[in-house]
């Protein structure tokens, strides 16, 4: 087992610094929003986490396909890592979304397309983890995981489209000219900067955690191998 590579150490530090910078931006650079006040600031982290949660989903789907074609266990480790950490990021996104929603819409939750799809996505992640837990054989676990990641991945865009055909009250953030009509809101340039910066920062944090999680997966596998050697 190799010690933490230099690049990863650097990445950790960079992630931490970037996070500090993002927090500073959110609280001091971005202007205070007129209607909602300080609570609105949760929005920057909400969008960032949601974006990153989606990333993991795509990573899982792709790893799944690669695993099925190569049967290389490495890709299974990558896939699990992607799902596990995205599960957490996405959960944070949902919770921060609720925190934002209550003062804005006077409700913790609403069944509009984005939120409903988010809930379903989270459930697919959890179903994936449950599926894996119920299988002893590692090879079968990897195969089934990959298949479900693929099916789940494909269903989500369709789910989103299907619910989108309903009307939405979720703010259409980007490109909402007539904010009031679409339930969206205007964003000052400084706000946009903060949002995109937060997005970038969380992507970096995602990569750091992803890398760590993959290493843990490899370590776990090595431990299993050693355990077997001992018993033989």
């Amino acid at each position, binding site marked *: 087992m190799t010690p933490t590579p230099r690049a990863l150490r650097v990445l950790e530090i960079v992630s931490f610094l970037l996070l500090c910078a993002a927090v500073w931006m959110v609280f001091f650079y971005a202007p205070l929003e007129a209607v909602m006040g300080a609570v609105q600031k949760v929005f920057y982290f909400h969008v960032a986490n949601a974006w990153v949660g989606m990333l993991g989903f795509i990573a899982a789907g792709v790893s799944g396909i690669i695993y099925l074609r190569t049967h290389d266990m490495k890709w299974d480790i990558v896939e699990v890592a992607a799902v596990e950490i995205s599960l957490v990021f996405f959960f944070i996104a949902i919770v921060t979304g609720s925190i934002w929603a209550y003062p804005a819409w006077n409700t913790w939750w609403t069944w509009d397309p984005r939120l409903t799809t988010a809930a379903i996505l989270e459930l697919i992640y959890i179903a994936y983890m449950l599926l894996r837990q119920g299988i002893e*054989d*590692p*090879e079968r676990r990897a195969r089934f995981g990959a298949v479900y990641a693929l099916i789940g991945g494909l269903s989500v865009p369709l789910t989103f489209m299907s619910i989108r055909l309903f009307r939405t009250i979720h703010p259409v953030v980007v490109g909402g000219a007539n904010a009031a009509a679409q339930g969206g809101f205007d964003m000052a340039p400084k706000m946009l900067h903060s949002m995109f910066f937060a997005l970038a920062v969380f992507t970096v944090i995602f990569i750091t955690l992803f890398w760590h999680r993959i290493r843990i997966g490899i370590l776990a*596998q090595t431990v*299993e*191998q050693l355990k*077997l050697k001992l018993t033989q």
Partner: protein
Amino acid sequence: MIEVRKLFKRFGLKTILRGLDFHVAQGEFVVLLGPNGAGKTTFLRILASLSRPSMGQVVIAGHTLPAQAAEVRRTLGVVSHLPLLYGDLTAEENLQFYGRMYDLQNLEARLTEVLHLIGLESRRRDLVRTFSRGMQQRLAIGRAVLHDPEVMLFDEPYTGLDQDASAMLDDVLRNVAARGRTVVMTSHDLARAEELGSRFDVLSRGVIAASCSQQELGSSNLLTFYKQALTA
């Protein structure tokens, strides 16, 4: 007929078969012996094309596994300790189903022939779930010989059979052997094995530890040979 070279089979990190070599000429009746957990069933499943080798070459009747699996399956008849029969169908219907799956001509005539061979003609219209274990095993053998395979694989076929059923199975096996079919059978019943087999192999610690033909065994006891092979 059966050529196995350097066969490895891994389940996760556990290696069950380690570079197993196995050669069977046409018409041989090989009895595979070995302690529980040695990998006999795993090996037979690989030969039956139900499981993929992790590494190594398996060639049956000139066709390579897993690439030419479909061709191999046509030449194989498999009897395991599970009946592989549908309880809610009659004996006749079960054979009809498998006959269709194997794309057989003159199905009706062949059905009657096989039912006669296994002594279940009088019960052909009865539901399989009303059959005793012995009768089910007989029907399972009928299913396996239906398409007249060149190679037959038996995995512990005597398990749970009473005297009559065992005697019937003996007859069928002798019949099959007499017609020049190649047979590989795993068994714990050494007395029967000694009577039927033309060759005895012992699978231990993932390889064929010892092999001897009927002539070589001569007056010696199969049990002695087996014990010797395990301690070697």
